[in-house]
């Protein structure tokens, strides 16, 4: 072992992470299949006939029967699921009865707006939540700590749609600093490439449009992020306060490292993992919370589509939307797990044993 060249050791250190990734991908696939069955069944248990809702009150019994046959609704749930799985494997989620377009087209249109909102909110959680937690722990018991704890508590104690209304009233209505609704000003035309406006405007080199998109997303994203910021700050503080009691912090002090460096490096990194886990969960939970915030800020995301398809009992639309949200949730969790493995040498190296 001693004579092993360094390269072999390095590859050895990578494999456990890859193994972790493979394991998480496999379990995610199983979860996704389970979710699809569940939502497939639930969507069909809700009372109401999708064919009748889609065709309207004037449709004849024959027309309804024909549509039911076309949608395979006249067959058992198991047969229907078989058709669904066969379609999904071909990348087809069926036709939405609400928009009369393929569900995949609908999702491709609405998902980027929601994802962009969530990504910006997640970035805010990290960019504000973690530093606030670090300051709070470093100045424990001082006024900065007390102020940060008060703010975090406020952030956690109200749901995001309440913050959405409050922020909109304060900073878009009374103090018109931010636009009140929408993704971008009406006079700006952006050619969609990815559907993420902040990326598309940058790709086009249109900085004015980029600034406009960022200006529009600021308030809804902040409303969505506030409770996550509060939670991340509180958890980071709590863990760092505990870490500060450890001998290695005293050792760092005995070596004369600055308090700032001790906070940002020696105390922060060992305390980061629980915060990351929480941010990951919050991130995924935002997919649900975004529905109401999107409604308040007239954000053309997946929320309006999701609500409409549920109300119209658009089976394909419901299943498609839920599947996409579940998949996003799982992907975010895998990313968080990998990040944690990279940050925590113990987890990274213990994968070898299992």
């Amino acid at each position, binding site marked *: 072992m001693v004579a092993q060249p360094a390269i072999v050791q390095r590859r050895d250190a990578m494999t456990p992470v890859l193994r972790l990734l493979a394991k998480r991908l496999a379990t995610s696939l199983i979860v996704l299949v389970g979710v699809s069955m569940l939502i497939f069944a639930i969507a069909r248990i809700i009372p109401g006939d999708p064919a009748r809702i889609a065709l309207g009150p004037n449709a004849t019994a024959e027309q309804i029967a024909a549509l039911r046959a076309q949608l395979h609704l006249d067959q058992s749930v198991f047969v229907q699921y078989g058709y669904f799985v066969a379609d999904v494997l071909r990348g087809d989620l069926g036709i939405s009865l609400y928009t009369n377009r393929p569900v995949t087209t609908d999702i491709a249109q609405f998902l980027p707006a929601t994802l962009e909102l969530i990504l910006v909110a997640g970035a805010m959680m990290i960019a504000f939540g973690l530093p606030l937690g670090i300051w709070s722990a470093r100045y424990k018991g001082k006024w900065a700590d007390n102020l940060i704890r008060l703010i975090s508590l406020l952030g956690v104690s109200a749901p995001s749609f309440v913050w959405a209304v409050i922020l909109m009233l304060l900073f878009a209505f009374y103090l018109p600093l931010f636009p009140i609704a929408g993704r971008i000003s009406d006079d700006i035309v952006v050619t969609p490439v990815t559907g993420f406006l902040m990326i598309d405007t940058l790709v086009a080199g249109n900085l004015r449009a980029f600034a406009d998109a960022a200006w529009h997303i600021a308030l809804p994203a902040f409303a969505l992020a506030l409770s996550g910021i509060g939670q991340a700050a509180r958890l980071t503080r709590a863990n760092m306060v505990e870490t500060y009691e450890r001998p290695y912090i005293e050792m760092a002090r005995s*070596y004369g490292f600055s308090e700032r460096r001790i906070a940002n490096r020696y105390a922060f990194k060992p305390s980061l993992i629980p915060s990351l886990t929480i941010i990951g969960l919050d991130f995924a939970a935002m997919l649900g919370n975004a529905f109401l915030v999107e409604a308040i800020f007239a954000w053309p995301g997946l929320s309006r589509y999701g609500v409409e398809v549920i109300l119209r009992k658009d089976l394909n639309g419901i299943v498609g939307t839920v599947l996409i949200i579940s998949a996003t949730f799982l992907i975010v969790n895998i990313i968080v797990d990998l990040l944690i493995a990279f940050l925590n040498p113990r987890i990274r190296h213990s994968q070898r044993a299992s």
Partner: protein
Amino acid sequence: MSAPMLDIRDLHLSFKGHTGLTEVLHGISLHIQPGERVALVGESGSGKSVTARIVLGLLQDLPSARITGQVLFDGRDLELMSSRARHALRGTAMSMIFQDPTSSLNPVFRIADQFHDVLRRADPSVAKAAAHDRAAAILAEVSIRDAQRVLNAYPFQLSGGMNQRVMIAMALANEPALLIADEPGTALDVTVQAQTLQLMRRLVEDHHTAVLFISHNLGVVREFADRLYVIYKGRMVEQGPTDAVFADPRHPYTRALMAAVPHLTGGGIPEIAEASPDFAAPLVDHEAEAPS
């Protein structure tokens, strides 16, 4: 006699609590010559560790601590120095070794990175590769043969004895003039502790480093120190060359402490009385009596 490396004069320390001031150190004095190994011996709570932390300047920032007296390091009064200048001494001119090596090293950084940070205290511009080479050289000095593996490891992947060597190597990396060792290796098993102490002794001799060695273990002190101070409840009770004090312990507390060392022949350990009026007897100074 040359000027002492460390000279503590009439040091008082008290903590402000809910019930008012509690004095922990009642005016202790201590000096260490350059390259000299001096032990500070006493039971837990006697004030050994706080003394070490005052020398390093770790207690001064505590709002509840009240410190009076003089601490001269290389002839300069630490209390009169700017906090910046005092701060600059830490990790460069003086460094410290702690009780439990494994929990004193940061668990989420590789040994190489922790070494790099330590070396940067003396030379802020030192590059990663250069620091790596320097660290490997110092690790070789503490008899670590596969330095590359150790440098790439995290503390939890190394044994306690290995971590102890790493900590000794780190503490001496910047060639400090004074090393403070607070119960080094107490968390290790006895043979490993003896090995690492031997290593440490050889290194500080080679580098001519002055050592303040804090311990409750008289056997270890006898092996390691040139001179020793016995401290009891914040007061020095006996001081002198190690041989002289062991040959002729005169203070009642020192005698009780020595009687409490377990013997291989068995017979049980005599208990030290929690307190005794005898222990309050004045300081016995072996050097003051014998002309040196």
